[in-house]
């Protein structure tokens, strides 16, 4: 079955740009495989504290979790698609249990596997990811439906102790420019920006 979500919803690229504008330079941004990474890279590729995941579908929220543990004085914001979160739902249970206060999960929900042809996902009909996260113990959950509500949710999440989820229904707009940076360069640039010497 193909998904047919509302095209009037906010667009991922617009909301991604607003995250970049709202957070300070010390905030770590992590983007998941596919469109989340394509949009962040296209809009803010020169931002040093961006980490782009290229494969390992589902792992972006766990990468953000590890970063939140290792960098407790920084805010960590993960941008990830709903299909990827559904693939790694167990991580929500772990994050809820450990509850790193500096972690925010922004979940883009266009109700489909967009990049593989728009196959409908359970969030189009039955699955409420915000309720799942709350059920896992991540009690701060926003479900903004407008750009203004989204900006308000991001401001709250980076200021107030978390963890937080922001589950946002978005329009099925394709991702921006696909990128295939060298993964070792992504790692080295990111660690350099944090002032950490890799092995």
């Amino acid at each position, binding site marked *: 079955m193909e998904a047919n979500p509302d095209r009037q919803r906010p667009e991922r690229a617009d909301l991604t740009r607003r995250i970049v504008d709202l957070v300070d330079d010390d905030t770590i941004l992590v983007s998941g495989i596919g469109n989340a990474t394509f949009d962040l890279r296209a809009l803010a590729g020169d931002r040093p504290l961006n980490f782009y*995941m290229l*494969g*390992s579908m589902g792992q972006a929220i*766990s*990468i953000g979790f*590890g970063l939140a543990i290792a960098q407790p004085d920084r805010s960590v914001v993960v941008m990830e698609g709903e299909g990827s979160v559904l693939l790694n739902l167990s*991580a929500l249970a772990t994050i809820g249990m450990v509850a790193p206060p500096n972690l925010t999960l922004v979940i883009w929900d266009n109700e489909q596997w967009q990049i593989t042809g728009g196959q409908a996902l359970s969030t189009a009909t039955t699955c409420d990811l915000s309720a799942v996260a709350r059920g896992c113990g991540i009690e701060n959950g926003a479900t903004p439906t407008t750009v203004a509500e989204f900006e308000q949710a991001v401001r709250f999440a980076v200021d107030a102790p978390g963890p937080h989820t922001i589950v946002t229904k978005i329009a099925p707009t394709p991702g921006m420019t696909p990128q295939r940076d060298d993964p*070792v360069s992504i790692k080295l640039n990111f660690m350099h920006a*944090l002032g950490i010497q*890799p092995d």
Partner: protein
Amino acid sequence: MVSTSQRTWQESIVDALKANDIHLVCHVSDSVLAPIVRNLESDPEFNVVTLTREEEGVGTLTGAYLGGVRGALLLQSSGFGNILNALGSLAIPYQIPFPILLSARGGFLEHNVVQVAWGKAVPETVESLGMQYFSMAREDEVPFVARQGIHHAFVSRRPTVIGIETQLSGGKRGS
């Protein structure tokens, strides 16, 4: 090689983690690993995270390493099957080092036929990914192999598996 220490092999593994500056340990349930995990949980040098599923550990340890904290993943053979894509498309291509301490199943002392096929395939799968599998089958080799096997992950800039064989651990008890 003969150990000069009176430490148990489980304590030697903890020593090896400390010697390699490991501070975050992610694990999924295993009866062989349980005493090691209890030891780590009572030690303020370690932050111990109980995962829900093993694959999360690859992402979590990647994030921790990027943020300047070295970690280790403790799991059973079967759990190693749950992390393969994350190894192949995250930890290996991004050159993220961490040791995987693996409680082996399926060989000597095994009592459950369903553990056999994957247990045999684990070392071959590790090798096929271009990673090292270091085996610990005797107590006297644990201090050296654990310490150097963990160190090898950081030298080779990729995950490295240190196998706790059933000859050493006594295997999983029960029916």
